């Protein structure tokens, strides 16, 4: 999800500064870099790592109303460090950005928040777990039970999340490689949430239930120079199995990676080239053509599925723009999930 790294660097309202970050993927002066064989310590590692340049707490959920209507929600907190430390007061070099969205079959509502560290307006603490920016929060004892809330000008939601499976570590025990050049991140997920709560929409309140997926990732050198964007899938099949798969689009060829997760949480990492991604149809949104219908093949596991965006117009018109929305899965496996695409 190097994508999200770029995102974070756009945290700044001075939009033109973003251009200065185009080459950021390659350098990580003074910052720690992910190392293979890193031993995760919990609950500490649920908290922030200010010595890494970028980090996020990224939650998506596929939800249904009482009438069977599909909904999706996103709750993301990005941390971006200007310098590899934290300090008190306005001059803290840690910046925080929140993105929240509710997607209905007809509409996509989103909101964005910005803050810096050091003053208490935004941050994450590991124990008891609390991640917040302004009035948005994701908090609980550990990651197993979470209360989640966010609001925008047209929506708000209040949800509770309960984990029914273990954490899943991607790549080599949480060391997730992102390019042939060796860029990598520390990356783990909690993909087994059951979710319930209320969405407040312009059309009224909707009680919803469903399943959620939390990604935790931090790094300092996210993108290879030639990489322009990515397509990232988190799919939950009705069989109970799950698939996380991404493709980083580069001039020197695509780089893919995937994690196959069994219903009991056992996982297997699938190397570059194991998964094939084929765009089948595009949708014009925000003046660009975005593939909202995909064929995803994973021959090793007998997977050959069509992934269809429920709401093709799920565009995040935030400072850094991207597509993020719920999907339906059909084919060899059926199910639902989330799709994120950047660089279009």
């Amino acid at each position, binding site marked *: 999800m190097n994508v999200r790294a770029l995102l974070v660097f756009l945290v700044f309202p001075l939009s033109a500064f973003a251009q200065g970050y185009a080459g950021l993927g390659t350098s990580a002066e003074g910052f720690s870099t992910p190392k293979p064989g890193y031993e995760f310590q919990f609950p500490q590692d649920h908290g922030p790592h200010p010595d890494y340049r970028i980090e996020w707490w990224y939650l998506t959920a596929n939800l249904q109303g009482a009438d069977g209507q599909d909904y999706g929600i996103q709750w993301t907190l990005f941390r971006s460090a200007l310098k590899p430390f934290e300090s008190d007061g306005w001059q803290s070099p840690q910046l925080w950005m929140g993105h929240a969205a509710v997607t209905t079959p007809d509409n996509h509502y989103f909101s964005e928040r910005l803050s810096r560290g050091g003053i208490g307006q935004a941050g994450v603490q590991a124990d008891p777990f609390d991640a917040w920016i302004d009035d948005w929060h994701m908090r609980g004892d550990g990651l197993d039970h979470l209360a989640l809330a966010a609001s925008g000008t*047209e929506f708000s939601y209040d949800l509770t999340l309960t984990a029914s499976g273990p954490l899943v570590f991607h790549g080599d025990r949480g060391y997730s490689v992102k390019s042939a050049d060796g860029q990598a991140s520390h990356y783990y997920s909690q993909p087994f949430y059951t979710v319930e709560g209320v969405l407040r929409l312009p059309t009224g309140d909707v009680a919803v239930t469903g399943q959620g997926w939390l990604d935790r990732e931090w790094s300092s050198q996210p993108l290879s120079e030639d990489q322009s964007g990515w397509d990232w899938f988190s799919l939950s099949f009705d069989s109970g199995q799950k698939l996380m798969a991404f493709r980083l689009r580069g001039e020197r060829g695509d780089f893919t990676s995937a994690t196959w997760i069994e219903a009991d949480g056992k996982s297997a990492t699938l190397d570059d080239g194991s998964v094939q991604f084929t765009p089948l149809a595009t949708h014009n949104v925000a003046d660009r053509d975005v593939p909202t219908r995909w064929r995803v093949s994973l021959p090793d596991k007998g997977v050959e599925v069509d992934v269809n965006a429920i709401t093709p117009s799920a565009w995040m018109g935030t400072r850094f723009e991207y597509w993020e929305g719920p999907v339906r899965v059909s084919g060899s496996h059926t199910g639902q999930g989330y799709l994120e695409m950047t660089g279009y």
Partner: protein
Amino acid sequence: MTRAILLVLLSHWRMHRLQLVTLLTGIALATGLWSAVQAINAEARASYARASDQLALGQFDEIRDPAGSISLSRYVDLRRAGWQVAAVLDGSIRIEGQTVRVMGIDMVSAPALPAVTQTEQSATPPEPADILTAPGRLLVSPDLAPVFEGLDGYPPVIVSTALPPSFVLTDIGVAESLLDRSGQISRLIVLPEQPLDIPSLGDVAPGLIRTSPASQLDTAQLTDSFHLNLSAFGLLSFAVGLFIVHGTVGLAFSHRRGMIRTLRALGVAMPHLVRIILFELVTLALVGGVLGLVLGFFIAGALLPDVAATLRGLYGAPVDGQLSLRPAWALAGLLMAIGGTLAASVHALWRLSEMPLLAGPGVQAWRGSATSWRITAVTGVTMIAGGGICFAMFGGLLAGFVMLAGLLTGAALLLPLVLSLLLAALSRRANGPVAQWVWADMWSQLPGLSLAMMALLLALAANIGVGTMVSSFRLTFTGWLDQRLVSELYITAGDDAQGQLISEWLAPKTDAILPIRSVELPHETGPLFLYGVVDDPTYSEHWPLIARSPEAWARVHNDRAVLINEQLARRANLWPGDVLTLPPDHTLPIVGVYSDYGNPTGQAIVAMPVLDSIVPKVPTRRFGIRVDPSVATDLAQTLRDRFGLPTSAVVQQSAMKAQSLAIFDKTFVVTSALNVLTLGVAGFAILTSLLTLWTQRLPQVAPIWALGQTRAQLARLELVRSVLLAGLTAVLALPLGLLLAWVLLAVINVQAFGWRLPMHLFPADWLRLFLLTMLAAAVAAALPALRLLRLPPADLLKVFANER
């Protein structure tokens, strides 16, 4: 054919170069003064607009703490309740003896200001880390670049042209340390997009007050009256300038009568001729207008720094001292020049078109007649009455100026009749033939000179009126300062805690410590500053009250009563016996009104405990100290040393007064400059009129010369005549000027600034002005007198030879 006619007409100017110069000068002066004032106004207004845009002032709702600054934790509370607000810390620092405004904004959440956008789009944008983390960056206005050059101890500077003058914009984290106000926030900008269902402000942050842009202090509104004053002056100068144009055009036409008769005899149709003359006048107006614009640009450039200083001092309005050329201004100036020239020539043109085909070159036909004076006088009376009625009906500043315009124009129109009656009376009382001739001659010259005398009357009345207003104001202001600034020392502490320390340390060493504590509250008339005072005789003995109930001060301390300043009293029409309502629901009886010159906002004074009950926890950072004046200087230095206070934080009474008076004097530099210029223009108008009359002069003086008066005697009489007429006009201008002063003090000032001033009389100033007028009239008459002196007797003889 047209070309030939034009060449014939233009040949006149070749032969009468002085007339051409006079005409162009008249147009240039009228256009120049008017344009200068317009340029100053436009520049100032553009500065306000730029500053508002650049600083996003008046675009968003704001949240403030009436008790002072907002703490960081309250900001976070609001944020964590969902309120989308951006923190701003305002203040000022002194660098190299210059006061610099500092605005620290939260660069992460505040709306992008133009200066920030400009910086980020520059060729070498700074890294966000440079802006947000120590030492940070200062975005400074171009005028500050040299100030910061080579200064140590400040963050690196980035120059931005998108900032008002003497202004520093920076991240709030940098501003905190620059202003030494860690953890403080001056105000919160309420961002336009707020999430659903946020709790009310009162629930999250009780005590904070939200204000809409409409109730925030608006510089443009505040300064409107100032600019209207300037405009009125510009218009007056323009009118006076047009008198010159009128005089010269009349002269030129009278000279050309022979030429026009010849042209018409040659078959040129009158409408064609009029069209060509119109073309000629427009061309001349354009030339004069361009000269005027150049002149205006320089006058404005010279006056603008003082105006800028005034506006900064009086209203805190950011005005750039630099003048830029605006196309709209130039175009308006040229249109004024053409319009004014044509208006001043319409009379002459009309006369021309009505002229019988074969009328002789005599000049008598050009003069106004005595009967027309009565019509003019009736018009004058009507204008005065009209202005008065307009003010009575509509009130307000604009109607006040209409009344003023009616009064001045009406009085000017009355002048010929009054002068003729005076001259007639004087001539009846004259002894001896020469004296009788002088009076009679003056009377007969009056029609030709009356316009110049009207210009003189206006200029003199304006001088006396405005001079009396300024001097009265200064006298009142000085007395008021003496009353108001009674403490020997004024101290500003860094914060509440230091204030406490200082006051404890000072207690045994001084006669009294008078804390100065204030809060800003919203009121229907705009922001209102509420001050708390302790019970000390200093106030009751010295505070200048202009209206009061009995026992006013006792009631302030015992009955929760309030004193309000004159501005608030007049704006809200509240006087002793009324009540003042303050948020949330305090009603306080008003027991007195005090004068409060130079303050644009409303103000009220209550007893200290009352202030605390209305707004708890107002910090105490400022004090007035009563102490033996002889030890004040030493004590000031001790205070600075002991508490590490900057020089500007401990100010002695005398310094404070000097500062206030300096600002005051600056305010009226422009007024005095315009005054002098207007008088100069009027002097010039007399000269042109006398030159106009010169051509008719010979037939009138030749008989006197023939009767035995020498040319030297005649030349002297010429001077005397001019001086006498000017003197009479000056005498008549005095009551008009005083009336003008009264209108300015009692009507215009009240409407414009909210205070009424007592009128003082300054006879010495009048005498000086009177002598100056005599001198101007003598100088203006010197040229015709000199001509007379040097006139060959043969020319005088020719008068008889040529007589038909």
